[in-house]
């Protein structure tokens, strides 16, 4: 039996009203114009059946290429803007990439590919669009802290499982602070395309305040970002330019202060925080304005999503789960019971569950990840340091900051010596680590707890 595949993404724009647009700072593309026009010049056909890397600098051209190539390309790998270019050869090999879409200068990494195609927001009439032949494989990259990012394989059907359609009485204008080339941002591109909405994207290097002003000018109604993005927006005078009716948070823990601050800033908006990960897909959305999620979510199956907590870590089984990692570097993505371990640690308090951090203690500083061990290794290089423990401290501005507890080999006799050693340690850290990893405060402590495993006790 042949399984019916959902139509390609482009199918959703066939009936787009004439007043729906994709915007960035420099350009505006009519969604309906993409039915008869192409952003890929006369070279669209060359990409048919290929494994295509989308490596444009702008989000707008990435969005256009994604829209035109789903169903046409065999595989689409979406390159986020902040990936180290040094990883490209490994990514190209692992995803068997043989073509690339760019919007700037041709670069040497792509010299051996069969096709290098330019994408532009200046559409030209398409001579003949290649027929849809494939349920295209979508590959998204994880935001790892070190090493080559993992390549996570999805399908359009899986990526869109959490997208439900509500009848909207007024036109919807989506905006996202979150880059559409990451899982959380891609959800917004798909919502806009499938819901027949306009979409306002930021341009590379555009100041956040300018983006807010443009969101206001285009009358954004639905706006999404991480708690860090929102904290930053709330500190901008330009926040008064927008009045969305739906405010969405995802990608980081949404704590009560940020939810309350958004409620105060947008009293009439519906405010929701969603849980999703690149590997597990969308888990759930919470719309009651409270941090955490109802513990009852762990009991049943909702929208095909089943969740459980194993050793404190949230596991999700869902049609939105990625299927596997591409290439050979990835570990097993789905466990024997069909669940994806998210690595996000959950604690139950009464009838509510709260996210308390990452497995392995990874600290998230405004979207940048820190392994405590790498900071401890630097601190421990100081000749007077016996051992150290790096941990997060809550910050309303970045979610968390890094602080360190340090045990010295012998205690300092005078307060001046103590502050001298602190300065020395900080100097060492500043010389060896990017600034978000440098501890903001160092406390000298007599002893650090060691767990039965012989490892530093990191939590509790």
């Amino acid at each position, binding site marked *: 039996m042949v399984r019916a595949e959902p139509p390609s993404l482009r199918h959703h724009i066939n009936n787009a009203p004439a007043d729906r647009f994709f915007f960035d700072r420099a350009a505006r593309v009519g969604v309906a114009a993409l039915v008869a026009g192409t952003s890929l010049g006369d070279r669209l056909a060359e990409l048919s059946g290929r494994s295509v890397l989308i490596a444009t600098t702008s989000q707008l051209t990435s969005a256009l290429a994604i829209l035109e190539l789903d169903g046409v390309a065999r595989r689409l790998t979406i390159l986020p803007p902040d990936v180290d270019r040094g990883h490209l050869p490994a990514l190209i090999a692992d995803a068997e990439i043989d073509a690339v879409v760019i919007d700037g200068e041709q670069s040497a990494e792509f010299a051996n590919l069969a096709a290098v195609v330019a994408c532009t927001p200046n559409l030209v009439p398409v001579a003949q669009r290649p027929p849809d032949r494939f349920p295209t494989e979508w590959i998204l990259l994880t935001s790892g802290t070190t090493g080559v990012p993992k390549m996570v394989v999805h399908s359009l059907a899986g990526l869109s499982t959490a997208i439900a359609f509500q009848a909207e009485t007024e036109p919807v204008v989506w905006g996202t602070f979150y880059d559409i080339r990451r899982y959380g941002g891609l959800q917004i591109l798909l919502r806009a395309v499938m819901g027949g909405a306009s979409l306002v994207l930021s341009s590379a290097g555009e100041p*956040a*305040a300018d983006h807010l002003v443009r969101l206001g000018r285009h009358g954004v109604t639905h706006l999404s970002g991480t708690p*860090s993005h929102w*904290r*930053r927006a*709330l*500190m*901008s*005078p330009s*926040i008064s330019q927008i009045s969305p009716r739906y405010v969405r948070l995802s990608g980081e823990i949404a704590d*009560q*202060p*940020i939810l*309350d*601050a958004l409620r105060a800033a947008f009293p009439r908006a519906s405010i929701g925080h969603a849980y999703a990960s690149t590997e597990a897909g969308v888990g759930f959305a919470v719309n009651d304005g409270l941090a955490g999620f109802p513990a009852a979510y762990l009991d049943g199956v909702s929208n095909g999503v089943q969740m459980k907590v194993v050793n404190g870590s949230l596991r999700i089984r869902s049609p939105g789960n990625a299927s596997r990692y591409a290439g050979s570097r990835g570990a097993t993505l789905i466990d024997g019971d069909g669940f994806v371990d998210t690595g996000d640690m959950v604690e139950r308090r009464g009838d509510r569950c709260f996210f308390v951090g990452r497995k392995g203690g990874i600290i998230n*500083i*405004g979207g940048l990840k820190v392994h405590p061990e790498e900071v401890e290794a630097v601190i421990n290089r100081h000749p007077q340091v016996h051992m150290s423990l790096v941990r997060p*401290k*809550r*910050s*309303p*501005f*970045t979610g968390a*900051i890094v*602080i360190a507890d340090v045990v010295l080999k012998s205690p300092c006799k005078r307060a001046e010596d103590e502050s001298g050693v602190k300065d020395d340690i900080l100097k060492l850290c*500043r010389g060896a680590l990017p*600034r*978000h990893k440098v501890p*903001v*405060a160092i406390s000298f402590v007599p002893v650090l707890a060691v767990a039965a495993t012989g490892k530093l006790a990191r939590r509790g």
Partner: protein
Amino acid sequence: MSIKLTIMDQMAQVAREHGKTLAPLNDDLALLDSGLDSLGIAVLVARLEDRLGVDPFTASEEVQFPVTVGDFVKAYENGAR
């Protein structure tokens, strides 16, 4: 040193450590236009907790996100009362 001077002093210090140039400060300047980014402000708040013994932004559950330099200073002046 007054609360305001302590804050200005620490702003300059954090800007130096982060390799940022501090703009000429006045009460109406947007905090994020001061030269410090979100991380810089998070670090500044932690330093000020050390110096002033108070963190007005995590002390209560109700966070007012400061928009201007004046808002920021006022949060400490109110917190110290």
